[in-house]
């Protein structure tokens, strides 16, 4: 047997083709346009689409030339001639799993706290908002924030994910808070990324003062600098290429320089609708310097796989990928 064709491409092609014959004319029109773009994006997409289009075309031909009933009788006869009962059970179990999976995934990937947040994005969803004071807030994939604006301060609590903040000057301080500390600004632009045990601030313009939890003196961070700070008071300044990071953010790319792989995978996971499961400890010792597309996590994973032969990436479906280190032979 051939290895099955790229499952992802097949599944996507199938989903597109179903949309092409939707009952809704507007959806059909949109699907036609997007399907063309999808096919043009990758030769594997085009191949998967061609295989299915050929099949659907053949079925339409049966319908049009009046041989619907011979086609139906033929399929029936074939299936009755050699029933394959053993496979039925497997198919049912697979279907059951497929039906259960989406709901379970939703539970896995969207913590309840995020659903209650003032602003939140799903995986792979980016959103840009203008706040009441004119400041702009852009949320990356799987991000969530709470907003608290009053007469004296404007506070954005970053619950999850990464945000780009473009603060409008209005006299009140603008504060971005995480459990690891708070960033205080007047008018400036910066990126904040919250991880489980630390927060990373990247300054694009002007400066801010950061109060790290458990340390009394604020740290001033200027444009072109980054600060990683944790709740144990640890903080590390480093220099960054601000314009590059901002471009990357706008193009939904992840730029990392010598970061542990688990941190990179966390960012990819936020931008992927399925689950990426990995052994944090096993992959943390691998360090990555890369520019990865966050809006095409399949490609990003492939790029990682190409560069780390020791990495074993298994794709059970587009919705479930596991990553670990291949056993040494």
């Amino acid at each position, binding site marked *: *047997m*051939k*290895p*099955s*064709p790229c499952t992802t491409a*097949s*599944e996507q*092609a*199938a*989903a597109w*083709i*179903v949309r092409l*014959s*939707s*009952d809704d004319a507007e959806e059909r029109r949109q699907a036609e346009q997007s399907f063309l773009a999808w096919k043009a994006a990758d030769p594997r997409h085009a191949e*998967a689409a061609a*295989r*299915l289009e050929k*099949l*659907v075309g*053949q*079925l*339409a031909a*049966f*319908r049009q*030339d*009046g*041989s*619907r*009933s*011979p*086609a*139906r*009788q*033929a*399929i*029936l*006869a*074939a*299936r*009755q*001639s*050699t029933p*394959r009962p053993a*496979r*039925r059970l*497997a*198919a*049912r179990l697979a*279907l059951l799993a*497929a039906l259960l999976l989406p709901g379970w995934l939703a539970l896995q990937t969207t913590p309840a706290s995020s659903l209650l947040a003032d602003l939140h994005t799903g995986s792979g969803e980016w959103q840009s908002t203008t706040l009441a004071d004119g400041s702009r807030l852009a949320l990356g994939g799987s991000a969530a924030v709470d907003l608290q604006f009053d007469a004296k301060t404007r506070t954005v609590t970053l619950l999850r994910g990464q945000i780009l903040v473009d603060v409008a000057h209005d006299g009140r301080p603008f504060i971005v808070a995480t459990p690891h500390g708070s960033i205080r600004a007047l008018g400036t632009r910066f990126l904040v990324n919250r991880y489980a045990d630390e927060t990373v601030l990247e300054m694009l313009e002007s400066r801010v003062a950061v109060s790290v939890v458990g340390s009394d003196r604020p740290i001033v961070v200027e444009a072109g600098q980054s600060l990683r700070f944790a709740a144990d008071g640890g903080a590390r300044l480093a220099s960054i290429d601000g314009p590059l990071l901002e471009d990357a953010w706008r193009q939904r790319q992840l730029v990392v320089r010598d970061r542990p792989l688990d941190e990179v995978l966390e960012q990819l996971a936020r931008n992927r609708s399925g689950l990426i499961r990995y052994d944090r400890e096993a992959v943390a010792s691998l360090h990555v310097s890369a520019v990865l597309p966050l809006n095409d996590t399949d490609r990003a994973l492939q790029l990682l796989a190409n560069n780390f032969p020791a990495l074993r990436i298994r794709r059970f479906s587009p919705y479930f990928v596991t990553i670990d280190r291949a056993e040494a032979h």
Partner: protein
Amino acid sequence: MDRPAVSCTASPDPLHDLYASHHGWLSGWLRRKLGCPEQAADLAQDTFLRILGARDALPAICEPRAYLTTTANRLIIDRARRKALEQAYLAELSAVADTRHSFPSPEETLIAVQALMQIANALDRVPVRAGEAFLLHYLDGMTHAEVACRLDVSPRMVRKYLVQCLLACDLQSAA
């Protein structure tokens, strides 16, 4: 120890090794199974042809004889199915001849039978209702809503069924 010539280790031409070491054995096995030397020789040949069509899987064959008999068994089932399918198709085609413009040419029949085999095999791998939704929509031309109504499921479910069947068909085309 009686190690087969082709094992998990890659060889410069694994198919050639496979053929040289096991073709005779497979023919014998098929002769005993089918009781017809011509059919057995034919099937043995087809078994290697099918494996040739999937060459990239070869280096992974660790149990060549088990692999060969599995492939041959599948061919036997496929042939029986194809025969039943083709007969039913042609019989029904004659029955509805007056509603059709013309009788299909042998080439058209071959293409139709291949597509129908692909669908019949794929439908074995999906639930009955999914298969029915697929035929009602793509063969009978019902809209999603009409299929939903007929099967008493939501239009969303109809979409899921259709995607599932298309995917199963695509996997069949690769098998």
